[in-house]
């Protein structure tokens, strides 16, 4: 008897929960809940001709508060949308695959998106597909261009934005050596072009500073590796700590969550970290500076261009120091020897083109970067 009652109750609960699903159709993408408060759900928005979420951002493997890449882009989009009272929303692909990214794009379009921002290298194939599938929707793709099978095609409804990460990396490497560090490390996430550019720039910056200081060959050492993920994990922390134990003074943590692992290692050892993408100085005392890309600014600009009719569809731009696309946040940096003047000088030289920095086309290995003073130890 007892069992019967229980099963009846269970059946009732199931039936109830089913109706729950039907009546509450905003459950499509629970990640976006902070915007669902506005009262409209994704599906409802798709049905109605007005409303919906005009601006959409689709994250890559991170989330919108990854304190890095996605967050920077999201902040730009959000800032514009809030200033101008435009509805916006973000979507998170269910997994790291072309299909999942494309499905997220489908969802965003259904949700009424007119402009979709996709930060990340992972979107080169999905956007390649989506640009022809949705000719009326505009796309902004960051750190990549729509590419499939090695053919790049940027349709009229797509703007692709690259950054001169090698310049940001150069500034970081230059500042580190000028500050007085001689034993450096570079821990990249996955060897995607943006990360490689950061790393190569870092090496060249260190080399340039070493040359200016008149150091002898071998005086500056860089350990260089790609950890193969963008995660915060004890494995990454162990690796960073092993480097610090070996005498590395400053590690450029170039890969999302990897940064938190390196910071944890640095805290125990009293060593320092260089952050990436956005200003990470608030994350930990150990972050002396960050090799920044002005993500939020450029996303803001791109969104603005869409609304004022200057959307430069079909083009690919690389934002450099000249456009203030890359920088070190000097106000929050904890340098003692590297001054604002030093920074202004090197920044101006990069801006004017006086200093030219090689990027990922230098070669497949960091040892392909031409150096004479810096000694690179490439760890695989």
């Amino acid at each position: 008897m007892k069992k019967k009652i229980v099963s009846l109750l269970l059946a009732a609960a199931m039936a109830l929960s089913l109706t729950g699903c039907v009546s509450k159709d905003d459950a499509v993408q629970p990640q976006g809940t902070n915007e669902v408060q506005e009262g409209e759900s994704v599906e409802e928005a798709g049905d109605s001709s007005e409303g919906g979420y005009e601006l959409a951002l689709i994250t890559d493997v991170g989330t919108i508060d990854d304190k890095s890449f996605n967050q920077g882009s999201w902040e730009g989009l959000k800032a514009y949308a809030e200033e101008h009272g435009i509805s916006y929303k973000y979507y998170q692909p269910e997994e790291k695959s072309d299909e999942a990214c494309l499905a997220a794009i489908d969802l965003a379009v259904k949700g009424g998106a007119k402009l979709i921002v996709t930060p990340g290298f992972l979107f080169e194939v999905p956007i390649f597909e989506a640009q022809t599938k949705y000719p009326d929707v505009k796309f902004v793709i960051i750190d990549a261009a729509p590419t499939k099978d090695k053919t790049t095609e940027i349709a009229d409804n797509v703007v692709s934005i690259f950054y001169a990460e090698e310049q940001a990396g150069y500034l970081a490497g230059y500042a580190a050596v000028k500050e007085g560090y001689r034993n450096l490390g570079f821990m990249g996430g996955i060897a995607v072009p943006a990360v490689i550019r950061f790393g190569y720039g870092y090496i060249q910056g260190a080399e340039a500073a070493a040359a200016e200081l008149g150091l002898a060959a071998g005086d500056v050492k860089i350990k260089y590796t790609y950890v193969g993920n963008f995660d915060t994990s004890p494995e990454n922390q162990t690796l960073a700590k092993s480097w610090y134990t070996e005498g590395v003074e400053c590690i450029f943590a170039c890969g999302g969550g990897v940064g938190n692992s390196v910071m944890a290692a640095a805290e125990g050892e009293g060593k320092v970290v260089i952050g990436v993408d956005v200003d990470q100085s608030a994350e930990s005392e150990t972050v002396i500076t960050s090799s920044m890309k002005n993500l939020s600014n450029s996303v803001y600009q791109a969104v603005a261009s869409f609304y004022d009719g200057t959307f430069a569809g079909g083009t690919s731009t690389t934002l450099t120091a000249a456009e203030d696309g890359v920088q070190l946040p000097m106000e929050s940096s904890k340098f003692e020897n590297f001054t604002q003047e030093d920074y202004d000088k090197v920044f101006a030289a990069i801006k004017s083109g006086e200093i030219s920095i090689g990027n990922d086309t230098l070669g497949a290995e960091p040892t392909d970067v031409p150096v004479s003073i810096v000694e690179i130890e490439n760890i695989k």
Partner: protein
Amino acid sequence: MSILYFVVQQTMFFAIPLLIVAVGGMYSERSGVVNIALEGIMIMGALAGTVFIHLTDGVMSGQGVLLIALLISGGVGGIFSLLHAFAAIKLKADQTISGTALNMFAPAFAILVARTLLGVQQVPFKNSFLISKVPLLGDLPLIGPMFFQKSYITTYIGLLIFAAAAFVINRTRFGLRLRACGEHPGAADSVGVNVYRIRYAGVLISGVLAGVGGLVFIIPTSTVFNASVAGYGFLALAVLIFGQWRSRKIFFAAFFFAVMKTLASAYSAIPVLKDLPFPNEMYKMFPYLATLIVLAFISKNSQAPRASGVPYDQGSR
């Protein structure tokens, strides 16, 4: 020499959470309830602990905060595990499924809570817990730098927990009853042991320990908690199996896994290993390969608790 000290110090960061969680798993499984929800429980524990540390930042700091956070983590882990206990013991549900449900629930819940409370997904915490040197003991030659410098209080707490847990399960009346419920609950019941109650206790202990383990795991290795314990709950299950559900073997298994994990991550700093021709991936695979090999050899006379995973129904005795 500093590399040796480093390896030992680092091994502790891997070994202690694995040890605590695996011993927790042992309590659950030897009472007769399979608990694959360890991962989820670790997440809940770590969430509660890091949120507490975050919220008290500026108000309190030092070891006291960590101790309170550990208690909170354990408490939350225990409460969360009762969901599994209820499903597995009272409702006689499939224990694998209810465990999986908890594992899937926990990260989503952690994100929700963090976003609601702090506005962001990652829970940042200030780590003011590192003990650079334990007084007196830290000055000992050899042993000092290995075990009593750059350590966390959690290391010693973890070892104490292990000692207490091993004693209780092997040497006390409660331990004997618990083991009996995992081997032959019918027999235990026939002599007046309340199987349900013992099993609830077993799962509850596993929940408390897994919750504590979650926080112990996060503190030394990150500066934020991001709704994940990187699969270490499952790794602890592997330690449990590798250790054949016996406390002493679990101890060695945990340290074996920890040493391997450390070497796999830090081999480039270890002169001997650096020159060996093995690729990095070899070290990463090794603990799992060893587990598979051991399982292949001992599966015939595996010492898994016989009634583990079988719901006990008093009526069918």
